[in-house]
């Protein structure tokens, strides 16, 4: 049902479906329609115009009824096209799956064979096949199917290679399945939708190819009618009696057009990437739609978030990723935001510079102030001028944030030249200095490296250098060391710490690791279910956690040096932000929760530097 709704949302696809359905009904109804025999020759009635007596569409050069020939011919052409598509899809997909699944030499040999098949111009190949097998509709069908096998083989192999490396295939092997069973029950269901998509877009093409062969006299043989041979026979009378060519021509046009439109619609509706809106381009800036009043500037910090609300609106659900979050960070200070996945820590960070993908993201309330200016109200040009220049980001995975096709030096130079009008030579010099400042050895030669030529730690240094390129005042680091090994992590953390002391940077450091927070941050905010549940100085939080969540989360973290032991766990799962419980989001997992915890808003109480959102805190905060 979902599929049909998606399909018919596409107007053109719906139109294609209707036209195709009419044609199919007409063609299937041939036995009960009052048609004349399509092959009866009556030369006295030759070249009758359409709408003449007894012949609705007129007659052809032998006086045969065009309507009857058209419908019979359409039936034949459609049958041949669909049948050829089925054959090509079956053989091509089988070849593709086998090549992709086994890989290595088998893949190499098969795909080189397919490449050779592809290297021939398709019509030449089809002609050669028909020439070898002799003319006839069956042979034309074989030729058209053979010509299209490479298309399916290549497509399906590509998908299969990706799937064959996935862990569920290994798991199936360990469950005792053989190769045949893995291909049939594990791989095939996963590639089936691709096969259907590829077929829906090629049936039209195959009808056209078959018509082409018939037009050349290599397909259907007289007196049998198909659309191609009708065109071929009408060719000589093109000028004198154009209707004999135009009628089958229009039919071919209608069939191919409707199938292609429908095929595109099917692809759009089935393809999971398109369905999830991958092609809907997010805007350059997050949509701001603030309900209620914008909080007045309270003059805190260099970067100041006031009661920020960010939500995702997906169809009719609302994901409240960030709820009423207030934070600030001063020059030279490092603020940690700690939380588990789905706690809203990354969305908070991305909201600052309007980087939340929009749609579906919407900032629905609050303010983000940089030196007092409300960034949420700022026009895109002014925001863009500040991105990277005043506030820069470091992301988790440097491999996906660096462009794989450009040298790291060029990417650094670009980042500099966006904000500063400097010559290439100056920019290059600056790029080298930046790489040196993040302690990359041999910076002069390293700027010529591509990202894949560097190790994870070196890439993250480039990511940091990129963030430093325009001497920003604030750096927002979103789990910058999570993807790195511990020895490398230690180096990167030490580097960030030095940089902030040398340059007076304000750092917002997002992480899930208490050890990292303890070593780097001055103050910490703990997030859960899109809210700040506790904030304070790092020492206060680590030594005297007040919120039960903070305390129990810290108990879960195994510390090195404890030997073999049982670990503390928090039962249950973090809440879904689309379905937050009323009251405290942690209440369902908390052993101190009472009735009062499960209703109404619980306010963040305490001072500016130490606050907790809990009715039964572990410790009274000073």
């Amino acid at each position, binding site marked *: 049902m979902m599929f049909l709704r998606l399909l018919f949302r596409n107007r053109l696809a719906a139109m294609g479906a209707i036209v195709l359905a009419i044609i199919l009904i007409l063609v299937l109804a041939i036995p009960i329609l009052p048609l004349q025999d399509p092959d009866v020759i009556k030369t006295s009635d030759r070249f009758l115009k359409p709408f003449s007596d007894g012949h609705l569409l007129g007659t052809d050069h032998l006086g045969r009824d065009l309507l009857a020939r058209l419908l019979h011919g359409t039936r034949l052409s459609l049958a041949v096209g669909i049948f050829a598509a089925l054959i090509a899809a079956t053989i091509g997909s089988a070849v593709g799956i086998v090549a992709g699944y086994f890989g290595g030499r088998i893949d190499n040999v098969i795909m080189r064979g397919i490449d050779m098949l592809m290297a021939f111009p398709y019509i030449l190949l089809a002609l050669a096949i028909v020439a070898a097998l002799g003319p006839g509709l069956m042979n034309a069908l074989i030729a058209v199917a053979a010509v299209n096998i490479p298309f399916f083989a290549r497509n399906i192999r590509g998908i299969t290679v990706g799937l064959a490396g996935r862990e569920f295939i290994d798991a199936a092997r360990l*469950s005792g399945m053989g190769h045949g069973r893995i291909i049939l029950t*594990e791989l095939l269901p996963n590639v089936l939708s691709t096969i259907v998509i590829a077929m829906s877009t090629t049936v039209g093409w195959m009808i056209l190819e078959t018509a082409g062969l018939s037009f050349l006299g290599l397909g259907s043989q007289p007196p049998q009618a198909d659309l191609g041979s009708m065109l071929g026979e009408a060719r000589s009378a093109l000028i004198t009696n154009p209707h004999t060519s135009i009628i089958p021509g229009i039919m071919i046009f209608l069939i191919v057009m409707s199938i292609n439109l429908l095929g595109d619609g099917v692809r759009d509706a089935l393809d999971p990437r398109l369905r999830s809106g991958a092609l809907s381009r997010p805007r350059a800036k997050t949509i701001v739609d603030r309900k209620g009043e914008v909080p007045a500037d309270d003059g805190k910090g260099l970067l100041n978030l006031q009661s920020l609300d960010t939500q995702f609106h997906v169809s009719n659900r609302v994901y409240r990723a960030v709820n009423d979050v207030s934070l600030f960070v001063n020059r030279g200070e490092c603020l940690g935001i700690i939380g588990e996945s789905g706690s809203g820590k990354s969305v908070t960070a991305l909201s600052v510079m309007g980087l939340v993908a929009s749609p579906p993201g919407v900032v629905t309330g609050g303010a983000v102030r940089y030196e007092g200016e409300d960034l949420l109200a700022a026009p895109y040009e002014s925001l863009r001028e500040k991105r990277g220049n005043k506030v820069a980001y470091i992301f988790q995975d440097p491999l996906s944030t660096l462009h794989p096709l450009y040298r790291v030096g060029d990417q650094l130079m670009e980042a500099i030249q966006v904000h500063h009008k400097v010559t290439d030579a100056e920019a290059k010099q600056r790029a080298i200095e930046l790489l040196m400042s993040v302690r990359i*050895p041999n910076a002069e030669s390293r700027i010529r490296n591509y990202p894949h030529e560097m190790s994870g730690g070196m890439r993250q240094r480039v990511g940091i250098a990129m963030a430093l390129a325009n001497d920003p005042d604030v750096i927002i680091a979103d789990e910058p060391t999570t993807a790195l090994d511990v020895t490398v992590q230690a180096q990167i953390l*030490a580097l960030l710490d030095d940089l902030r002391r040398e340059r007076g940077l304000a750092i917002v450091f997002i992480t899930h690791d208490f050890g990292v927070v303890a070593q780097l941050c001055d103050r910490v905010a703990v997030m859960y279910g899109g809210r700040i549940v506790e904030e304070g100085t790092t020492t206060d939080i680590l030594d005297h956690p007040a919120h039960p969540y903070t305390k*129990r989360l810290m108990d*879960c973290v195994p510390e*090195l040096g404890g030997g073999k032991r049982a670990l503390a766990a928090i039962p249950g799962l973090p809440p879904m932000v689309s379905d937050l419980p009323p009251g405290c989001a942690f209440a369902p997992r908390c052993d101190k929760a009472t009735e009062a915890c499960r209703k109404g808003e619980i306010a963040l109480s305490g001072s500016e530097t130490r606050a907790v959102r809990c009715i039964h805190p572990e410790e009274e905060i000073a």
Partner: protein
Amino acid sequence: MTPALKVENLAKTFGVGGGLFGRPAAGVRAVRPMSFEVATGETLGIVGESGCGKSTLARMLVGLLDPTEGSIEIEGRALDNADPAAFGRLIQYMFQDPVSSLNPRKTIKQIMEAPLKRLYGMGRTERDTRIDEIFDSVNLRSEFLDRYPHEFSGGQAQRIGVARALAAAPRIIILDEPVSALDVSVQAQVLNLLRDLKTEFNLTYLFISHDLAVVEAVSDRIVVLYFGAVVEIGKAEEIFARPRHPYTKLLADSAPVVGRPLKAPEQKDSELPDPLNPPPGCAFATRCPRATEICREKEPMLEPHGGDQFAACFHPLE
């Protein structure tokens, strides 16, 4: 007593380059010859950084990769995966990514049935009772059986992974980073579940992880890998407290710990050696503060350093 798992001189070299029919031009030694034993009921931890050969080792042990040299013995018999059914009953593998290890187009019931059907040839009713039993022991509700993998959170999906490995009723389970994709508060749930199951079913674990603290908390003994070779083996409570190999010490010092001031334990900005062109001698020598001439010439062998601790180092720490 026969060890549950015995590995002798196990090594894997991957060919690099070479054309359609040509021989590979070069080899990357992902795992250098290594030997160790795992006693029945023991948990052996394996730690190391990315690229140290942890996963290659694991995949060889479960027969997903063929070793280049050396032998693997499971309960006294050489590894033989000619009969997938017999092999699957001995050893199972639990994957790192809970979601990608479950086929997105199958229901949990179909996923759970595969090992029971293929390995034990169970009938329908027998399967249903067995699945109910397993789901009970991993705290999953049986109404999950009709759902598809994408409907589960990471922690639940990982539990389904545990359930699938248990369905094979193996003797040994290889746990490859079983909790690294999970949140801290959920991670402990899975670890504790694994520990309880081990006692209940008398399992032997090989626990692979990059998280030293987690490995230490669950293991009896720990193997430290560097660049495809074992650099140190020892008891869990000793190895990080009193490391002998300088690399083990570097690892232990690098782990961020609450209450320890931040300092880069390694000021040299060195990287892992190039696997296509490995240096002679000890692979760690370029990063090692204690390295001398001999380290750059000869490969050190694993030697005992007090009790059960073995380290491959010419200049071990005291």
